[in-house]
């Protein structure tokens, strides 16, 4: 077991465990925004660790591509969270009792349609 193998083993197992914890959080958390957090942060960390663990074993060109994919995932994970989180907030799938402070509720921060807690008449979508 050379040093490279040991480092690869540590990275791969760490990444896989991080993915597992993320998936566990995805199942256990109460509402969508909490599950979003479990779905993006540990998964992205796990993926980056696994990609780096793989990149070590390959020649430079392949390793560069893998690290590019890891960088791409790091950049896009927050974008996905923001889009899905905004839809979750607007679609009302948020558990109000869990919220400590709701910064989006005051009209100043709202960009367009107000959040409707009571079910509106259906079919009014923009």
């Amino acid at each position: 077991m050379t040093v490279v193998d040991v480092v690869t083993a540590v990275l791969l197992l760490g990444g896989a465990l991080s993915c597992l914890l993320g998936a566990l959080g995805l199942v256990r958390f109460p509402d969508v925004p909490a599950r979003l957090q479990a779905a993006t942060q540990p998964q992205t960390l796990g993926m980056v660790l696994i990609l780096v663990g793989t990149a070590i074993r390959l020649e430079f060109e392949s390793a560069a591509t893998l690290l590019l994919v890891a960088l791409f995932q790091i950049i896009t994970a927050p974008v996905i969270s923001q889009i899905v989180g905004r839809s979750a907030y607007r679609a009302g799938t948020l558990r109000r009792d869990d919220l400590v402070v709701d910064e989006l509720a005051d009209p100043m921060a709202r960009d367009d349609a107000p959040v409707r807690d009571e079910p509106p008449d259906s079919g009014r979508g923009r």
Partner: protein
Amino acid sequence: MIVVFTVTLAILAAAALLTMVRLLRGPTTLDRITALDVLVILVVCGVAVYVAINRDGSNIPLVAAVALIGFVGSATAARLVERGERHR
């Protein structure tokens, strides 16, 4: 070394199983979108481990393509949901 790869793939399989639970049980569509996004990441991790096992870079475009498509798919689906009907 093969033990490490086997254990890693087993852990990833367990994570995929947990994600399937959320995918099937998720009350709202957004949960399912999130679960699918996690599945995409797990597929990418699985292919990366496969590349590590064989030490050849022939499957790397697959890793890149799946990561890109996973992101675009999730973003589009989430935008689609926002414009649609109510979700409880």
